[in-house]
């Protein structure tokens, strides 16, 4: 009998705490309608930047390809004799493998590979997770 009172009192005390939160602004975010603010350092999908002349800044040094722990970057490089520098003829990132670790971005000597704040990247099949240069170079 005493136990029943003890248990009831404990439940009421717990309910008291819950009841307090009725009057406080809810912390839940109604996600698809509202969006949370993403930190500027967010490690989302990758994108390549252009340099100030508007041409691609990446010179195909392959450092990002080598440092990636899961080998999800692949590229082909050619040398442009006129401009006397290298370019990539293809640059493919397989986001099905990518774990967004940020090592490639950190290692890029030209600082032309960066993360986007995009965290909603998804697709219906695996092929669409493989992005080529037309999607990555922005």
């Amino acid at each position, binding site marked *: 009998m005493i136990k029943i009172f003890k248990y009831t009192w*404990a439940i009421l005390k717990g309910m008291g705490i819950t009841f307090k939160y009725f009057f406080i602004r809810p912390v839940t975010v109604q996600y698809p309608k509202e969006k949370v603010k993403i930190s500027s350092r967010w490690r989302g999908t990758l994108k390549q930047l252009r340099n100030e002349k508007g041409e691609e800044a990446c010179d195909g040094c392959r450092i990002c390809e080598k440092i990636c722990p899961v080998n999800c970057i692949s590229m082909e490089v050619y040398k442009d004799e006129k401009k006397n520098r290298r370019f990539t003829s293809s640059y493919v990132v397989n986001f099905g493998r990518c*774990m967004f670790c*940020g090592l490639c971005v950190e290692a890029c000597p030209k600082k032309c590979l960066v993360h986007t704040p995009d965290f909603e990247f998804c697709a219906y099949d695996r092929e669409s997770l493989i992005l080529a240069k037309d999607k990555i170079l922005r």
Partner: protein
Amino acid sequence: MTEQIKNTGFEEMTLNMGPQHPSTHGVLHLLLKMDGEVITEARPDIGYLHRGMEKLAEKRTWGANIALSDRWDYIASMSNNFAAVLGPEKLMNITVPKRAEYIRVIMAELNRIASHLIFFGTYGIDIGAFTPFFYAFREREMILDLYESVCGARLTYNYFRIGGVSADLPADFVPGVKSFIDYFRPKLKEYDTLLSTNPIFMDRTVGVGNISKEEAIDWALSGPNIRASGVNFDIRKDDAYSVYNEFDFNIPTGKNGDCFDRYMVRMNEMKESARIIEQAIEKLEPGDIIAKVAKVVRPPAGEIYTHVEAPKGELGVYCISDGSTLPYRYKVRGPSFVNLAILQKMLKGLKIADVVAVLGSIDIVLGEVDR
């Protein structure tokens, strides 16, 4: 019928619990042999989440292994990062800058709070109280937001580097941590009302699943599980790594080693972690965050065992280097894996209703058990 039972006893029944059971905290499969309601034999069947982490590590550079280490115990990735960097650093005799050391300690202790909060929430669910879960995750969310502002990820941080950390703290991080701790302290009292002093909760946990001092040592338990049995063993004090010897903190221990003691040790540890974080913030001074280390490291040939006090226990990494960019052998001692073993002993003789209470109280994460 009664006559028959008297002669031969109940028929032994085998019950498969998991791998898809909400209370097994992942994909643990328990084979329970039962005589009526009493368990006569319990066998954990693991390996559903095996990814071959140790073999994968042999084909990754030392730096890339930090990114892989996030996936061992995925709710306390910072501690894993810590364990992954200490080995190569010691082999190469790198002195980590002071600022980086303090940042590491702050991160690891915040992670301890986050991990214990998950324990608090899920243990409440295991026992039958749903509310604590939401409160624990609300607080954990704040820690994750802090992490997000520092390293850009919320679960797999990949923040530590050999020789330091990858990025400096943003300007609003230190005020953020301070306000979090001010917010968090009163919440711990609230948790006590919800669970710690709740007679319903205590009836389910006090005196259930006792582990004696000797047993805990024999089964090589570590972390809160061994401390609850009254063994004062904490790597932060006993084999201080990083700058842990500079801080003033207590090590909470229990007496009886039952489920309630294991729960209480974790709750008290959160308070101590908050104290360490406050002290570390006081000591933060501007400076370098990473020592001068080559991008791709080649530790000299040799072998080393380093261990850290992860939220779940002693997380050790034994690595052998042959002087190349890849480790030759990379053995991980996951605390959850070792702590899980005692389950077969503890469950024997208990009622089926207590299985979940005991399993929850040793706080395993299957990513680390299977690796």
